[in-house]
């Protein structure tokens, strides 16, 4: 752990909402990532299946999370992820960042990143890689506890 991340961890644990949006019912990946982040010392909430983007935004604000991790395997990412970003921004929760995982074509990733998704992790990514990313990216911008 770098001094910066150690400091961030002291201030506040990273809070992550793992979300399933739309009708896609495959949530093993989402649950394994949720367990992995929990084991890495983060606070993790899981939305359960079949949530609307509105449900996710509401849960993210209520739970005061730093990150939303969206798992999508059904091909609806191009619609649902930008919509999630827009709803967050409209709810003045622009500081909540989005990562996505699952089956997302390479070609679509740049457009998603331009539309407010911070990072895309494809199936097969190790848990350690996701943990490292969240630790690193949370450090300088972690929410102030005051």
């Amino acid at each position: 752990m770098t001094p910066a991340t150690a400091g961030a961890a002291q201030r506040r644990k990273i809070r992550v909402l793992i979300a399933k949006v739309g009708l896609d019912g495959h949530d093993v990946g989402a649950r394994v990532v949720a367990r992995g982040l929990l084991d890495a010392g983060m606070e993790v909430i899981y939305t359960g299946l079949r949530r609307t983007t509105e449900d996710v935004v509401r849960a993210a604000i209520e739970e005061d999370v730093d990150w939303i991790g969206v798992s999508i395997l059904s091909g609806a990412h191009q619609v649902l992820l930008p919509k999630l970003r827009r709803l967050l921004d409209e709810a003045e929760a622009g500081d909540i960042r989005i990562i996505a995982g699952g089956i997302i074509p390479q070609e679509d990733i740049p457009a998603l990143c331009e539309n407010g998704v911070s990072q895309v992790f494809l199936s097969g990514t190790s848990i350690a890689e996701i943990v490292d990313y969240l630790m690193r990216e949370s450090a300088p911008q972690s929410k102030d506890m005051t």
Partner: protein
Amino acid sequence: MNVFKPKGDFDAASFDSGKDVAAESARWLKEAFAPARGSAPDRKKFLTDTGVPIEPLYTPAHLDRIGFDYLRDLGFPGEYPFTRGDRPGMNRTDPFVVSAYAGYGDAEASNARFKRLLDVGAEQILVALDLPTQCGYDSDHEMAAAEVGNVGVAIDTLADMEIMFDGIRADSVKRIGTLGNSIGPIVLAQYAALGEKQGVPWDRYTVNLQNDPLKEYIARGTQILPPAPAAKLAADCVGWCAEHAPHWSPMTVCVNHINAGGAGSSMGTAIALANVRHYLDLLLARGHSIDQVAPLLHMFPDERHDFFVSIANLRALRRIWARLMKESYGAKSPEAMACKTTVYGHGQEALAEPLNNIPRTAFGTLAYMLGGASYIYLAGYDEAVSTPNENSARVALRTLQIIANEHGFADAIDPLGGSYYVETLTAQIEKQILDGMAQIERVGGALPVISTGFGRRVMTEGAVRRQRAIDSGDRPWVTVNMWKQKPNVPNTAFRGDAQAAERQLARLAQVKANRDQARVKAALAEVERATAEDRNTVPSVLEAVRAYVTEGEIVDIWRRQFGTFVPSTDF
């Protein structure tokens, strides 16, 4: 004359020397194998995904250890306890059915795809439905936005069925059907009404449905209602077929998704068998006999990690099923005791270098064939990331045909029967499944597996264990943890067909505008009454389907009467 004579004590006498195989095996392990193995660490963990340690060599001593008794444990194909096969001739006379799972976009697009698959030699079509259809939403529902036609075909009304099977008579294939796990009575009615429209009587074709809602709550995720009413609707389909189409297979109880989700094939089989018991108990409570309904249920076993476990699992499953039906349910007919199996060939498919998934899925499928599966599908090499493209669907069918016809794979029945290894593993897997069943009994059966979180817990724990085995290299995976390559998701992945979705919306609007509205209203009222009065729902749903009532209109009635499932937020 130069006659070969064995030297030393290698002669007939040594075979009757009274040497004990177990003692000799122990000697070999110590004196020959251990030095050869040396002190280097094992190159992998010799442990099945289900947790059985694999020994370096199996001998008759292992058969002694499991108390192997040929007539009791194996018997003969098509005879109790059906270990060697559910039918007498197996692949020798009655080859497994080469099956294709397909469907995307709208009915038109799927019709063209099916015709091409039939040209390649598919003998059975199982229709992949899109998520809105599977979850009980019409294509014009707001929850369907962005999902119409993505992972399968959108079917809203009988009109879609007519187009999808235009030029494909229901009796021109060995079986026809779909998954429809949470909408069983509706899909059953659609396939019954399709025969009526085509002028093919029900006894002339065979409909196969998955129609297994209970596993959706822990594994697959298309649940609509709470588990108890969902199971009842599914059982209605079996009850209706028992009366009207007893040779159909209206329920395929799945290990597949439960195993893939992390439970492992042994616990997955135990959970699926608990689900079987729940459905059967509902049917018996409705007055059906076990001999009448058990033959209508098929199993969908699954094992994708270990070739020999896959074979052992199918053999053990048939043995357990036979004993369960005979001893616990008092079945008398062999048809009720013979477990018929549908399988879907997979391997550890990877995202990197997808063509490597062709050998992976071929080996996985070969294991299923050697284990004696009756109906076999094979995953497209690109299936992890998309509905199979034209080319991968063709390769999958050809691979099945090669396995069925080349190499002599299918010449002798149960060719691995009697193998020290396979029989030992079959007994070990059988014990794992029986232990799992006992554990589930303590939890309280199929519904508590869902409500107590037991099912999801074993799945998440198993999935985490698998992830660790991959991350650590204990479970070798070429291009993932050996000769690593970057995963790649092609741009074709689950790409919705916007034109097909538009066609679907237009067709739905047209059907709704042009149907006989009085008949629709009366049919919906009857669905409402039949459901409320706890009658078998299929007759009322069949009349509604005939009247071009939409799927969503029927499901809305069920949602109102039974409520909807509450998604679990446990992980």
